[in-house]
C-alpha cells in the first residue's frame, strides 16, 4: 500500500539518504531499524511531508505521489500518520482539541462543535485503551498519556499507514503491552504500520518484516522468521558485535555513598535507603515513573528532599544544590541528553569543561588552551567521533553526544557517578563503548549508579540491582540471583513474584 523507491536527500551537501527503498503491505507491521544517523528519521520526515526529498518516488495505494509537493496536510489526506517519541502536543489546549486539530477538516471559519469534539475524543481514547478526561489540558498529562493522545489522533484519522518513531522509549512495560495490543488491533483492521525502535525485542515480538538501514541505504529487508537477532545487529552495525557486556568482576571497596531514608513527597520518592561501594555498579531498575530519575535528582541536589540523610565516605553531607553535590564528589549524567546532558550550540570543549570550569580557569578566567587540552584528552579516551573539539556538540550523532555528556562528568573526577539511561537512543557501537567506559571507571575505584529501562543492560552491567516501585526501593538483588523475570516481577509487583522476593 506504500512503496518508496530510491529516496535521496542531502542536507547542505551531506547525503543523509543515498537511495532508500521500502514498501509496506496492508495489515503489516514493518520494523525499520538502524543505528542513529542511518537515515530513519529523515525517511519518516519525507514520507510525512515534513521534509522534501531531493529525488525518488513514493506510491500510496498504487498511485504516484508528487514528492516535491508533499506537505504534512497532503500526507494526512493520503492516510499517513506519525507518532513521535515525544508527542507533538499543544500543552495549553485540551486533549479533545489536541485530537480535533489534526482530525477536523473544513473551512477555517466554520463553527466548532465542542460537544462533538469531546465525544469523539472520549471514543478515540477508549479505542486507544485509555479513559482520561478529554477536557484536561495536554500540559497536565504524563508522557505515556500524551502518547496515547497521539495514537488516538492516528486512529481517528483513519490512518492506513501509521509511522511509530520509538514509541516505547518512555513507556512502562504495562503501557508497552497496551500499546502492542493497540498495534495488533490496528493491524487486524488492515492498517500498515512502520515501526521504528532500538529495542530489538520489541521488533521481534511485533514485526512481520524488518528493514535495516545503514548510512542512508537499505541493507536488507526480510520476514521476521528469516532473520536472527544477531544478523540484524550485524547488519545494522556492519560488523560483528560482542553481544556480551564487558563486565569483569571488581572487588568492591569501602562504602562510597550511603543514602538513608530519603523522602520527597513532591518528587514522589519515599523512604529510600541504599549503599554503593567503590568499584561497584548498582543498577537501578524499575518502570518509568517509579521514581528512579527523581531519586537521582534528589541525591544530586536538583530537588530538595523533605527528610533523609546522605553520607559520602561515611560523612554526612548537606546537598542543597548541584554545586554541593559536585563538591562532594558526585556526578550525574542526566537522561534527557539534548536538553540536559549537553548544550548543543556549544563546542565540545566548552561542554566538557562546563561542570568543572575551575579546572581550566585561573582567577575566574577560562584558559582556552587548558580547556582544549582537557576536551582533547576525553575525545581520545572516549573515542568521540568529531572533527575537532571546537565543533558544536549539536553536530554530533546521538552516541557521540552522550559521550560528550559523559566526558563532562568524568572531567570532574567524581567518586560516585550516576548514569541515567546512559545508552538510550544510542547506536549499538557507541553503546558498547559506553559500557566499556563504565567498566574502566569501576576498575579505577569509582562507584557507579546506573538507571536503565533496558533489562539486559541492567543484568549485564550491574553488581547489584535495586528495583524501584512506586517511589521506593522494593528490593536489592545480587547479580548472581538476578534473572530478567525476577527483576521484572519486582518492578511490576505481580503477586506471585512478591511471595518469592
Amino acid at each position, binding site marked *: 500500500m506504500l512503496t518508496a523507491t530510491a529516496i535521496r536527500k542531502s542536507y547542505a551537501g551531506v547525503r543523509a539518504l543515498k537511495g532508500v527503498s521500502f514498501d509496506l503491505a496492508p495489515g503489516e507491521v514493518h520494523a525499520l531499524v538502524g543505528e542513529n544517523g542511518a537515515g530513519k528519521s529523515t525517511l519518516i520526515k519525507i514520507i510525512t511531508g515534513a521534509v522534501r526529498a531531493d529525488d525518488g518516488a513514493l506510491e500510496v495505494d498504487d498511485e504516484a505521489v508528487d514528492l516535491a509537493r508533499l506537505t504534512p496536510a497532503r500526507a494526512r489526506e493520503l492516510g499517513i500518520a506519525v507518532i513521535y517519541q515525544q508527542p507533538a502536543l*499543544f*500543552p*495549553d489546549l485540551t486533549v479533545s482539541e489536541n485530537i480535533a486539530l489534526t482530525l477536523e477538516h473544513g473551512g*477555517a471559519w466554520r463553527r466548532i462543535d465542542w460537544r462533538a469534539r469531546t465525544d469523539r475524543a472520549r471514543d478515540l481514547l477508549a479505542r486507544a485503551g485509555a479513559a482520561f478526561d478529554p477536557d484536561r*489540558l495536554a500540559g*497536565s498529562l504524563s508522557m505515556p498519556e*500524551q502518547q496515547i493522545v497521539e495514537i488516538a489522533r492516528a486512529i481517528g484519522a483513519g490512518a492506513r499507514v501509521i509511522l511509530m518513531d520509538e514509541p516505547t522509549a518512555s513507556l512502562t512495560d504495562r503501557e508497552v503491552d497496551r500499546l502492542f495490543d493497540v498495534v495488533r488491533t490496528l493491524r487486524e483492521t488492515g492498517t500498515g504500520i512502520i515501526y521504528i525502535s532500538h529495542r530489538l525485542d520489541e521488533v521481534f515480538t511485533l514485526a512481520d518484516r524488518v528493514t535495516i538501514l545503514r548510512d542512508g541505504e537499505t541493507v536488507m529487508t526480510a520476514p521476521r522468521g528469516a532473520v536472527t537477532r544477531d544478523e540484524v545487529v550485524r547488519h545494522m552495525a556492519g560488523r560483528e558485535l560482542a553481544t556480551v557486556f564487558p563486565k569483569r568482576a571488581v572487588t568492591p571497596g569501602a562504602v562510597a555513598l550511603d543514602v538513608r531514608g530519603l523522602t520527597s513527597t513532591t518528587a514522589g520518592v519515599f523512604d529510600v535507603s541504599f549503599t554503593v561501594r567503590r568499584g561497584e555498579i548498582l543498577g537501578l531498575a524499575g518502570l518509568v515513573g517509579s521514581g528512579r530519575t527523581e531519586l537521582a535528582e534528589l541525591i544530586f541536589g536538583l530537588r530538595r528532599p523533605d527528610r533523609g540523610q546522605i553520607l559520602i565516605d561515611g560523612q554526612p553531607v548537606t546537598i542543597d544544590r548541584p554545586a554541593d553535590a559536585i563538591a562532594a564528589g558526585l556526578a550525574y549524567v542526566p537522561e534527557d541528553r539534548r536538553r540536559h546532558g549537553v548544550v548543543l550550540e556549544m563546542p565540545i570543549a566548552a561542554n566538557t569543561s562546563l561542570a568543572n570550569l575551575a579546572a581550566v580557569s585561573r582567577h575566574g578566567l577560562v584558559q582556552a588552551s587548558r580547556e582544549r587540552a582537557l576536551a582533547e584528552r576525553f575525545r581520545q579516551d572516549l573515542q568521540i567521533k568529531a572533527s575537532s573539539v571546537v565543533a558544536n556538540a549539536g553536530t554530533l550523532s546521538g552516541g557521540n553526544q552522550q559521550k560528550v555528556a559523559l566526558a563532562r562528568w568524568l572531567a570532574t573526577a567524581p567518586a560516585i557517578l550516576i548514569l541515567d539511561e546512559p545508552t538510550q537512543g544510542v547506536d549499538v557501537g557507541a553503546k558498547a563503548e559506553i559500557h566499556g567506559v563504565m567498566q574502566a571507571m569501576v576498575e579505577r575505584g569509582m562507584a557507579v549508579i546506573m538507571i536503565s529501562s533496558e533489562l539486559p543492560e541492567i543484568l549485564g552491567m550491574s553488581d547489584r540491582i535495586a528495583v524501584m516501585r512506586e517511589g521506593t526501593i522494593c528490593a536489592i538483588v545480587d547479580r548472581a540471583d538476578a534473572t530478567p523475570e525476577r527483576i521484572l516481577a519486582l518492578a511490576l509487583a505481580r503477586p506471585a513474584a512478591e511471595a518469592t522476593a
Partner: protein
Amino acid sequence: MIVVARHRAELSIALAIAGLGLVLAIRAPGFFVAGNLLDVLLATLPVLIAAIGATLVILAGEIDISVGSIFAVCSVTAGVLAVAGVPLPLVVLIAPLVGALLGAINGALVAWLSLPSIVVTLATMVAWRDALRWITQGAWVQGLPAGFQWLGLSQASYPVAALIVTAGLALAILRGLTQVPAGRAIYATGSNAEAARLAGIDTRRVRFWTFAAAGALAGLAALLNAARFSQIPPNTGLGLEMQVIAAVVVGGAAITGGRGSLAGTILGVVLLGMLGPALTFLGVSASWERAFQGAIILVAVGVDALRARRVTTMVPRREPARV
C-alpha cells in the same frame, strides 16, 4: 470547578477591579456617576481595541511593540485624507486598511523571514514614528471637516455607536478565538508551533494575519480616538504599546503564547484604564500613578507564576521560550 480553575486569571482581575471599585464607592462615590463612567469608557475604547490586536499577536507567541507608531500614522492619515476632501465613509475604511498594511509588513518579516518579532517591531516602531515626525514636522492636522468629529454622529449618539462597534468587534473576535478553527489555530501556533505545523496549520499565515489584524485594529483604534476631537496631533499614541502589552499580561495571557483570553485582556484594560482617574478621585498625587501601574503589573505576573507553578507542566516545550 474546572471552569473556575481555568478562568482563575480573569477572576482575580475581576476581584481586583471590584476591590478598587469598593474603595471608590466608599471614598469617592462620585466616580460612579454615569457621565464619569462614560468618559472613562470612551477614553479606554481605543486602548481596548488596540489591546485586542495585541492579544491576538501574543496568543500566537509573538509581540508587537509598533502599535503606538501605527496608531499615530493612521490618525494622521485619516486626518489628512479628511482635510483633503475624501468622503468620510472612505476615510473610515482607509484608516484600518493603512494599519493593516503596516501590520502586514511586520507580519511578513516575522512570518516569512522568521525574524524575532520583538526586533522587527522595535525597528518599525522607531522607523514609522520618526518618518511621521519628519513628514509632519509636528504640525497638527487642523481644519477637519465638520462631520469628522463624532464621525457624522452627535456627541450623544457617538459613544453609543462606538460602544456598539467595539462590543460587536470584541464579541466577534471572542467567538472567532473560541468557536472557529481559524482562532484555535492562533492558540495552537502559540502553544506549540512545531506541533501546529505537523497538524497542518500554516503557522506562517497565522503569524502574518495576526500582525495584519493587530495593525488593522490599531488603525481602527486611531480612528475612534481621532473622532473624539476636532484636531489631530501627530505625537499621539506614544507609549501605547506598553499600555497595551501591560493590559494583556495583567489579563493573564502568557507572553510565550498559547494561553490567554480576550475576556482577560478586556478586564486588564479596564483595570489599568480606571486606575488613573481613580487615583485622582481618591486624591492620590498624580506623580505616583506610574508606580501603581508598575506594581499592578508585577503583582499580576507574580500571582500568575505562582499559580502556574502548582500545575506541573510535563510537556517539554519544543522551542525555547521567547522573551
